[in-house]
């Protein structure tokens, strides 16, 4: 690790000006990803701006009925908050199916949104990786790519986004709030993470020096039900091989609202728009749900080692949507 300066920011303005958009500066949240990557030499910041004492640690209902989650709310507090458990079970379940109790006590909402891929080659300085060193190549394209993407990848990067929370946030159409040198702005979570394309070094559309200040959860349609399900290589404390977040609302037996997002399959949480369109207005049956899921997964292009993800995701989504449509 390189020697690093440290500033404990007490206001958003102080944090933003201490960071200043410099490439060698990083905001420090829970540190569970940043400190890990500093030890590996993947991150080499010279300036740390600690944002954990900013007054961004509340979960509050807004006048319009949405719920605002501050950027420094710890993952465990987010998952346990009554407003989140009662109104957004999919968000609570997604957080609780990630990492461990200890890590969730440390990890922040903002840090979770910006955690880097778990691609083993990204973490190994001896390997070629366009995300770590643009233009150096991608060891995973020809290497062991069991854990990698089946949707939306490019020849330059086949990494997946590892977050569980972000999959649920995509399914509830959450909005990221940012503060930066150019003022504040908001970005829907579904547009916050990028596909790798020609620039895999950019995970998201965040601009240099921008600070995530919070996430807005808009009200779900009345009577909507939601669920998150994740498959991993052991029963707990492992990243997703594949996961699905789904929100369904039925009226008179017909689907009026459907939001489906996959995790573990792509460089960003993957909204299954084709599935959603196929479901809307239908009376769900086992066959219609399976057809709708297939409509999205027909787009998948598996790599050498990960064709299993397509059938896994198909079974997961079919099961989750099937059981939600009987409870809705």
């Amino acid at each position: 690790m390189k020697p690093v300066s440290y500033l404990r920011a007490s206001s958003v303005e102080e944090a933003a000006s201490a960071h200043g958009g410099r490439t060698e500066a990083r905001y420090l949240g829970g540190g569970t990803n940043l400190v890990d990557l500093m030890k590996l030499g993947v991150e080499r910041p010279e300036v740390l701006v600690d944002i954990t004492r900013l007054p961004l640690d509340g979960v509050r209902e807004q006048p319009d009925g949405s719920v605002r989650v501050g950027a420094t709310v710890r993952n465990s507090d987010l998952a346990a908050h009554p407003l989140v458990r009662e109104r957004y079970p999919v968000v609570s379940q997604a957080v609780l199916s990630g990492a461990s109790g200890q890590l969730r006590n440390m990890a922040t909402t903002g840090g979770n949104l910006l955690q880097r891929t778990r691609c083993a080659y990204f973490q190994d300085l001896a390997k070629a990786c366009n995300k770590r060193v643009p233009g150096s190549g991608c060891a995973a394209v020809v290497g062991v790519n069991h854990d990698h993407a089946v949707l939306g990848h490019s020849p330059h990067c086949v990494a997946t986004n590892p977050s569980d929370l972000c999959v649920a946030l995509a399914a509830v159409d959450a909005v990221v709030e940012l503060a930066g040198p150019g003022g504040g702005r908001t970005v829907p979570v579904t547009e916050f993470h990028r596909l790798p394309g020609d620039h895999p070094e950019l995970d998201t559309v965040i601009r240099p020096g921008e600070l995530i200040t919070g996430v807005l959860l808009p009200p779900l349609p009345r009577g909507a039900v939601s669920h998150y399900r994740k498959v991993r290589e052991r029963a707990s404390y492992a990243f997703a091989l594949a996961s699905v977040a789904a929100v369904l609302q039925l009226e008179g037996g017909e689907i009026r609202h459907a939001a489906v997002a996959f995790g573990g399959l792509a460089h960003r949480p993957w909204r299954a728009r084709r599935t959603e369109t196929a479901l809307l207005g239908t009376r769900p049956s086992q066959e219609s749900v399976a057809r709708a899921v297939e409509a999205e997964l027909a787009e998948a292009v598996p790599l050498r080692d990960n064709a299993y993800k397509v059938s896994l995701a198909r079974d997961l989504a079919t099961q989750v949507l099937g059981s939600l449509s009987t409870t809705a």
Partner: protein
Amino acid sequence: MESNKGPHGGPGTTIRYAPWPRPADSPPGATGSPVTLRVNDAPVEAEVDHRTTLLDLLRERLALTGSKKGCDHGQCGACTVLVDGRRVNSCLVLAVALDGCDVVTVEGLARTEDADGDLHPLQRAFLERDAFQCGYCTPGQLCSAVGMLAEAQSGQPSVVTDPDLATDGPVPLTDDEIRERMSGNLCRCGAYPHILEAVQDVVS
């Protein structure tokens, strides 16, 4: 939700702040800073390099070697300690970020409020149930279990908690709940069945 919480939030039972004033932040550009902490109820003032993790501060500077370094990457739980009453992986927390916090390690468990000054009830249960073999993971298991019991008591759900359970009461700790909630602590010796029994003894 912000009331009565340290920077790490938490159920609040063991929050105690250092009674002395905080030193000013280090001058811009410095690569080390003074920190003041309470560790196992004792005041600690130290000048730390900003890269120092809490685990290294405890082990290398304070000679508190109970907390173990298994992976140094958040993947095993051997380094688990309590910060402001909440369990965390001390290998991933920078010490400088904890200025003003209250840290309890395995060495301090016997002096927390549930203990009799000799052993914490969980330590006694681990002995009675023979809940270890080599013992390397044990300090982390113990601190994790103490934090976990407080979390369940304060109503925090886990992924196996019934979603319909009322949000305002404690979560009953079934074997499945304990297994899931303790999954952040690996045991290479595979003492899991006895660890589960020991924790269950303290629950019931």
